[in-house]
């Protein structure tokens, strides 16, 4: 399938009998094509500059700089951290926790989703227990994980993985349970058995649900990892925030927040890619 933005319907109509809608080429200038996007980005840039300028001006003049720091200090701090390697070390730790946690949770969630979703009886039995576990705030599990596996990276990976697991699991299981019975019957009529139903109907048809699970759980991997670091750690961005705050170093806190939001932004781009994939798999019907 192509990745163009034109809806596939338009292509069909072009070569179908003349009763359908007709597609025409429209000539547009560069500004007509990209003007909207350029304007939005320009306004965003201006907004950012204005906020930063106000912040810089307010700090020390109207509000105590100890509490809100100032943009120039934050930039200096980021530069210093970049120079002595602090930035790279701690960011790398957190990114690893996010990635491992996400992968572990996603694989476990998908497996559990397919296995439990396929059996209506088992799912019905386990449903209240699963929902009870899902409702537990994941931070509350941190002390338990510390007792089990210590305060190293594993604990943060687990915390991220648990959150991701539930989101992927619930979405996958729901998709497996909602597979169109008509499609299952169609395969049965063609002489397909249980294995073929699972491979040729259930798997592709629940793909959209599984991908949605992955999509919504990406930010939670970040949240899980950072919360784990805030609870107990001696490395990572969460540790950096705690450490800076303990020394009343607000510039350090804000500098770490800037890095976290950059990571979040990068993850959002990843989610955008996943989102397009989900839409491609969605069984659109009218």
């Amino acid at each position, binding site marked *: 399938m192509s990745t163009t933005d034109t809806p*596939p319907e338009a292509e069909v109509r072009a070569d179908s009998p003349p009763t359908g809608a007709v597609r025409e080429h429209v000539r547009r200038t560069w500004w007509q094509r990209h003007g909207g996007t350029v304007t939005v980005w320009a306004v965003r840039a201006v907004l950012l500059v204005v906020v930063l300028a106000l912040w810089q001006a307010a700090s020390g003049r109207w509000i105590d700089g100890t509490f809100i720091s100032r943009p120039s200090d934050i930039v200096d701090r980021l530069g210093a951290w970049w120079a002595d390697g602090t930035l790279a070390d701690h960011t790398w730790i957190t990114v690893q926790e996010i990635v491992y946690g996400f992968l572990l949770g996603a694989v476990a969630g998908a497996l559990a989703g397919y296995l439990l979703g396929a059996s209506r009886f088992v799912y019905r039995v386990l449903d209240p227990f699963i929902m009870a576990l899902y409702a537990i705030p994941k931070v509350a599990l941190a002390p338990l994980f510390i007792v089990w596996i210590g305060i190293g990276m594993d604990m943060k990976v687990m915390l991220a993985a648990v959150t991701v697991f539930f989101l992927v699991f619930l979405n996958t299981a729901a998709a497996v349970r909602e597979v169109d019975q008509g499609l299952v019957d*169609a395969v*049965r009529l063609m002489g397909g058995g249980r294995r073929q139903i699972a491979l*040729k109907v259930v798997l592709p048809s629940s793909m959209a649900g599984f991908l949605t699970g992955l999509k919504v759980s990406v930010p939670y991997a970040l949240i899980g990892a950072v919360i784990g670091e805030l609870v107990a750690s001696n490395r990572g961005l969460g540790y950096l925030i705690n450490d800076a705050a303990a020394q009343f170093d607000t510039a350090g806190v804000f500098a770490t927040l800037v890095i976290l939001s950059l990571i979040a932004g990068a993850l959002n781009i990843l989610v955008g890619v996943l989102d397009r994939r989900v839409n491609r798999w969605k069984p659109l019907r009218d």
Partner: protein
Amino acid sequence: MTALLSVDGLSKRFVKNDTATVALRDFSLSVEKGTFVSVLGRSGCGKSTMLNLLAGLTTPTSGEVRYQGRRLTGPHTDIGYLTQSDTLMPWRDVQRNVEMPLELQGVPAAERSRTARDLIDRVGLSGFEHHYPRELSGGMRRRASLARMLAGRPSTLLMDEPFGALDAQLRHELQQELLRLWEDSDQTVVFVTHDIEEAILLGDRVVVLGGLGRIVVDRRIDLPRPRNADELQVDPTYVSLHREMAGALQGAAA
């Protein structure tokens, strides 16, 4: 002639909570090999339930379905079923959808592709092999479903109001195509519809169902083939058949 498909004392109940909905009660029918049987009935008279039972998708509460003299216990690849709603796999294009029955039978890829291409051509969908179901119009999806059913080479076709959701023009076209495809095969067809004209136009025999699958009329249609819908309108035999069927349907409802 021997009955290819026979049903004896078939009943089907759907139990929900403490009540059972009876969809079919003591239904019997036998279909001879190579004939085109139209089953005519108003909605809710158990037509779809009957077809699901004939296809082996559901099991009867009592009674049995016999196919080629043997008791039917589940879906049979020799019986093709075109359901009322589209069940094309949305993630497969037309070509791969039509290939699907062959794929499940383990036919090699090259032969699969050839057979599918030929069928797509026969139902008039060439040029749309690589379109996905959502990119097709309702009529084209019906054609694709028809091609998919035929790909499994069934000798018996069950059809549940296959053209019900289409506009009159398109329905007419597809009826003609179905007859064309059927005439040079020796397939047996059970065609369910609520349209009297369609039932008489297509069938060698029309069975009118009343409530709960009670057979009100079972009449052989001796109109010569090929039949033309426009000419039939003024044919006195057709007109009297039409009147009889309309009366039967009305009587069945009362």
